[in-house]
């Protein structure tokens, strides 16, 4: 079957790619565009390791087709830092040791950023429910939740 030509924007840059009709956005990111920061933990929408934002929506890129990227604005973990300045969430995760193996971290950061865009002052339980789709097997979530709340407080103060 002929490949589909897609024109889209990824991390603020215009991007064109060809993909198979059935190819997921995650596979396009990883295999075609070599943006391997988005991870595959399950490919079934259950782990959140592949989280990206499409416009202002948080999505599992493993559940999205590459073809659906046409005309969209997509942000991945590779676009989160601003030049050589880490996003405050990235910085806070480092300072508070909110990652161990780090495989869940890109997805968690993308999801947390989407949360803070919608709700700059989330309660602990709001953070926990928002991140319930992002599995982490290493940390027990404690330091992740604290880092997100502490970062939110800093960003409100800033």
């Amino acid at each position, binding site marked *: 079957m002929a490949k589909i030509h897609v024109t889209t924007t990824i991390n603020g840059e215009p991007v064109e790619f060809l993909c198979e009709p059935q190819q997921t956005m995650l596979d396009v990111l990883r295999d075609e565009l070599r943006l391997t920061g988005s991870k595959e*933990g399950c490919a*079934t929408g259950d782990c959140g390791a592949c989280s990206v934002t499409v416009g202002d929506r948080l999505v599992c890129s493993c559940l999205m087709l590459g073809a659906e990227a046409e005309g969209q604005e997509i942000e991945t973990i590779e676009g989160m830092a601003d030049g050589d300045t880490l996003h405050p969430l990235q910085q806070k995760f480092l300072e508070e*040791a909110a990652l161990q*193996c780090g495989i869940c971290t890109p997805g968690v950061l993308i999801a947390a950023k989407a949360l803070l865009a919608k709700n700059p002052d989330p309660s602990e339980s709001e953070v926990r429910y928002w991140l319930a789709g992002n599995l982490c*097997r290493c*940390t027990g979530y404690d330091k992740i*939740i604290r880092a997100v709340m502490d970062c939110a407080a800093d960003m409100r103060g800033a």
Partner: protein
Amino acid sequence: MTVESKKYKWVGTSPVRPDGNDKVTGRAKFGADLMLPGMLTGKVLRSPHAHANIKSIDTSKAEALPGVKAVITSADVAELESEWVPAGELQLNFRDLAHNIMANGKALYDGHAVAAVAATSAAIADAALDLIKVDYEVLPHVIDVEEAMEADAPVLHADMFTDGVTPKPTKASNIFKEVDIAVGDVEAGFAKADLVVERSFKTAPVHQAYLEPHAAVASFSEDGQAELWCCTQGHFVVRAYCAKLLGMDIADLRVTASEIGGGFGGKTTVYLEPVALMLSRKAGKPVRAVMTRDEVFRASGPTSGAASWVKVGVTNDGTIVAGEAILKYQAGAFAGSPIQPGCMCAFAPYDIENVKVKGYDVVTNRSKVAAYRAPGAPISEHAVESVIDEIAKKLGMDPIELREKNAAREGTNAAYGPKFGVIGFADTLAAAKAHPHYSAPLGPNQGRGVASGFWFNIGGSSSATVNVNEDGTLALATGSPDIGGSRASMAIMAAETLGIEVTDVRPIVADTASLGYTFLTGGSRVTFATGMAVIEASKKIALELRERAAKTWDISVDAVIWEDGLAKPAGANAGDFEPLTLADLAAKANQTGGPISSAASLNAEGAGPGFGTHICDVEVDPETGAVKVLRYTAVQDCGQAIHKAYVEGQIQGGAAQGIGWALNEEYIYDEKGRLDNASFLDYRIPVASDLPMIDTVIVEVANPTHPYGVRGVGEVPIIPPMATVANAIDSAIGIRLTELPMSPPRVLAALDNGS
């Protein structure tokens, strides 16, 4: 909260990890992230049957498919002798390993590999798998451990005659071996008891459930040398196993450990790695193979499901006079469950005169178990700690006081053999009792539980190299894959030893050709054993730096000391020369003898046993049977925390896994023996909204054999949670649950039955 702390510059602090930036930006390369030019995609065909003879495999159609570059089956895997080798806390048999990576004559579980292909695209590889025709003769299967032990159970291996019984049986069975541990005379002990409690328990098989599926990229050259990139807890171990399986010289295989997305013991063996190598050898091209989540659940090692029976006798004052247990552990399709450590740990926290433990290692038709954090211990200690709690309640004694009364201390003869040295069990009990959590009020339907846990921790072979760069910064390499921040701990220990800034040390995990053998990341050994190699290599650097300064000043090396990151003249020469920094000495290295570097390789002995005590509050919903963990505190003796935040993280992560084991997680099979819940949707690990914050208390009773007192951290925290939660549920509803997981239907049924 740290109970005890010493005067160190870096040890016990929490600097930002040196590999952190790459991990928050997506730059870090994990197993599946490497791409090589011309790389093929490798995929594995797996048995849909729990137990079947493989009568024939026809790969001709797959081989003829354009784009398919290699197909392999067990015919491509050399037959190996049955040979047991130590594998950390467990044992490994090479013949079984060969038969596990590719089924030989018989498929022994749903998900067992039967063939593999390498093709120019994933789609072609999938199509090729569909074209392979396997003729199966389906056999009766058995999964439950006690059913597998019955005389008329389907037998997995016709040559399995139980070890450890005399005379050796003449009839094959699924019991690979029996283990016996005994001290004193339990009958006499029970005769003295005022109260005896005995209970049977069942625990479900649970998976390590690391977020990163197994992945390997293999590249074979025409001259027989190969490179392998994979996510593993031990690339030297992978090298040894793959060289054995492929009949290679070890020197011809170089293995690089990628960043690793969790392992917890599950990435201490090989699955895809030798298969990718075999495909690459046959195709003459690099091959990347990555498991799907479904394959991870079906084909990689969970831990044992088990059936246990425990009997404990006490006198009225709370003295435990006898303990007895029978433990039956599933090994999966091949022998080698963690039954031995399970038996050894069962009563280890306590000073008991009379102990008897019998264990069975039983094969069943499911994937071969792999290590999972303190392999074997959580199962047996869950049973014992549940019974201890029941005894405390029956005696009307505080459960921590009952444990304090019987706690193993320095000089106690452990039931499994050795005499304990300096240990911190009693300290964890005291810290738990003093914690505000322990006396906080509880509401309706709520209950509090406590339980403890013991694990040996191990040492073993490790290597490290230190290179002083031209500007005086340090390149530090070890052979231990960093699974949870260990590079940060290594940098801390090097900086502490040399008295320099931690950011002047850049630690890496080097490949197998770059430094000496290093056993895998497991057994809570890295900070202890690899840390000792790092300290040793750093001390050699300090000595070398003193020699270089002595040369510069033309005085004897004995007249130079290394202090606070400076070479200083001492003794009679004190004050004669300006001290030299590492940068000064590095800049002059060529004039004083050339580059400054060191290497240390050692076999670390004297690992310090670890103990933990956990407190948990739960609320049981009487309508649904759902158990909510309201508050959780984990106290652990770590010897000495090197990187404090990552020590806390290990404890929190282990506790969370234990809570999952207690409440949600289990392998569910259909009547054909196929795994029914091979996804994160149906195999539900704890998510953020399931858990409260996990408070940690680090107790530091230094291990005298380590320069900084390290014991090891990673494994102890998964041991107490199952009994802690069960004991809390019992406190809440007055019902002792003996089967894991304590899922809502099971709790509801118990509430309905009132037992």
